[in-house]
């Protein structure tokens, strides 16, 4: 504890008073985190109920429920720590990128074997993570390759099992977040966060990792290189959601950034402007599956969007992080 005190006192002159850090932590958990997971539970409950009522892949109701629930998850998916991460829950909601095609493989294997795991939610939760979640459901609803594979009744059961599993995962995340919120907001020697610095670092990390993922992965993967664009790598392209995910994530991250910068109006305003520019670019793109990356003109526009997100990253790294007295630490994007 002596050590923590030393670090804290060293940081003090740089950053806002501890009281306001606690206020930020409370605000982010109560106004940013919990409402998102509460909403995810509602939207996935509707998805589960709709799939029970109608499992036809072409059903307008089912597709609408899929979109609404996926929206809710993308708007929360940057909060990928604590209860979201336990038991690989975030991966169970979206396994992506899938560079080796695990999702179609896992689904084909289930269908071919008529794997009985679909009848039991606990058993289904033990199956390959690539065959679960929104992108598995997307394949079943939108990929023609799965429209007539195997037995129709089994496919219907599989769609229902995936929807039920998504809802179960969402409920588990939300339930645990209602307990974890106080851990995050009240750091201490026995908490995973020993100081408000460590808790704040977690939230800052969620912001910069979310920006990194959207710029480098959501946009960078389909962009590929100029000579070899890879439009087929766009996220959720089969249901035309690729660009939507970029926009939803920016809207969510904008809210988080504003709350983290609450005590620093100038930085908050600069960040907000940068987000506004990025979101406007995304909205003007009119290229839902990011297929335009294959044409020089379209690629240029996606590149401009990516650059505008990188501008937000630079701003966060140069101003927000140092002002809060925290660094980004390590994240799972480190590595190959």
């Amino acid at each position, binding site marked *: 504890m002596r050590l923590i005190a030393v670090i804290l006192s060293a940081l003090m002159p740089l950053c806002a008073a501890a009281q306001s850090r606690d206020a930020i932590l409370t605000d982010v958990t109560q106004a940013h985190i919990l409402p998102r997971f509460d909403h995810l539970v509602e939207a996935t409950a509707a998805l589960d109920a709709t799939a029970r009522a109608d499992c036809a892949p072409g059903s307008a109701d089912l597709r609408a429920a899929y979109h609404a629930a996926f929206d809710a998850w993308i708007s929360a998916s940057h909060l990928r720590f604590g209860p979201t991460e336990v038991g690989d829950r975030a991966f169970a909601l979206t396994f992506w990128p899938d560079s080796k095609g695990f999702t179609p493989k*896992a689904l084909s294997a289930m269908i071919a074997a008529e794997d009985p795991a679909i009848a039991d939610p606990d058993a289904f939760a033990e199956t390959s993570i690539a065959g679960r979640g929104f992108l598995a459901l997307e394949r079943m609803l939108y990929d023609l390759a799965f429209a007539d594979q195997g037995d129709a009744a089994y496919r219907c059961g599989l769609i229902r099992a995936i929807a039920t599993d998504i809802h179960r995962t969402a409920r588990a995340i939300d339930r645990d977040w209602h307990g974890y919120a106080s851990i995050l907001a009240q750091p201490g020697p026995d908490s995973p966060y020993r100081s408000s610095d460590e808790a704040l670092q977690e939230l800052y990390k*969620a912001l910069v990792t979310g920006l990194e993922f959207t710029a480098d992965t959501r946009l960078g993967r389909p962009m590929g290189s100029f000579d070899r664009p890879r439009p087929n790598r766009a996220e959720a392209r089969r249901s035309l959601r690729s660009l939507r995910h970029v926009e939803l994530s920016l809207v969510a991250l904008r809210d988080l950034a504003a709350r983290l910068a609450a005590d620093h109006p100038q930085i908050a305003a600069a960040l907000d402007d940068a987000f506004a520019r990025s979101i406007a670019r995304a909205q003007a793109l009119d290229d839902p599956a990011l297929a335009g990356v294959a044409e020089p003109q379209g690629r240029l526009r996606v590149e401009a969007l990516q650059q505008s997100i990188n501008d937000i990253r630079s701003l966060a790294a140069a101003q927000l992080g140092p002002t809060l007295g925290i660094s980004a630490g390590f994240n*799972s994007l480190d590595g190959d």
Partner: protein
Amino acid sequence: MPRFLSAASTLTLLISSAASAGDAPATPAVLDTYADIAQATYEDSLTAANRLRAAVDALIERPSAQTLQAARAAWIAARVPYQQSEVFRFGNPIVDDWEGKVNAWPLDEGLIDYVDAAYGGATDENAFAALNVIANPTFQLSGETIDATEITPTLLAETLHEADGIEANVATGYHAIEFLLWGQDMNGHGPGAGNRPWTDYAQGDACTNGNCDRRAQYLQAATDLLVSDLEWMAAQWQDGGAARAALFENEGAGLTAMLTGMGSLSYGEQAGERMRLGLMLNDPEEEHDCFSDNTHNSHYYDGLGIQNVYLGSYVRIDGTLVSGPSLSDLVLASAPELDDEMKTKLAHTMQALGRIKTTAEAGLAYDQMLERGHAGGEALIMGGVNALIDQTKTIERIVTALDLDQIAFEGSDSLDNPDAVFQ
């Protein structure tokens, strides 16, 4: 003599742990130790790769079950020092830029040689997943006709490796060689590794699966390339070498490089990409050394490399100890509690990885642990994952305590999910 050495090193340990706050080693001395360990680790990797090359030459000159077995044993031995070098990757751009040539993974092995029908053909992501260059002396690649009548190191390195910009087109390095020595592991979650017959290298009528001469040519070219790549890297860490020089350009950045390597390997790479992903997918091929079933060792020596960097000591493959002023000494001087925490967590990781290793050596291979519903296997692997994640948290605390620059990140192309952070 060995007894004397161990007594002496025990003494050193006692002295260093008795050191009190205040007598921190100079940063250049800590960086020196780090560079010395890197140099020794790459030199050992080179020595072991030369032994592998000799064993491969023997296999090709006198194909037999014995010479194939000897080449496999040489490959497994070569992994011991190399895996301990992986901790040097992420903090040192010179290593990271080069690493893909020698240890790229995972691979679409159908690019190289024959595969089982269940492997499938070209995929959405990779049009060359089943190219089979050993069976095809000429082929089309991105609109160009490639002449592969002679399989040379240059062909592998400059044309085939990452062909079409696809990272899974791994034509060179340890895992390409591993595939050529073991073949595909067709046992799924059952016991057993790849079982390539030695007759895949027999000449004349005894040759199995065709093109034995070209297969031998490929294996030799890939092994030669591994040796020359390691020669290059070992030289970068000698006095005046570029990697060593880069480290000293800015002492703070040098320390950051050390910690970045430890943290990035622990968290994003090993805990995430290499361990947890396989478990989530329950896929027996989603293991780092999937042909040879040597994954338990790969993980173990990766972990050991991280511990080496922190403690400033490395045991060479000839038994010599390389050691000196360490990061641990530096942390001890200003934050003894944190040094204690780091050492404890590193030891805990080694215990968790050791459990995977001993269990695998007792007969439960890593791919068996990955099976759906295998509670014991899952607990073993998650033990390693959790320990690695936990030690990363302390590495972050050290970055803060030493007041180092912000850790710079490397993007990820394969796991690519911000499963950020700690519970």
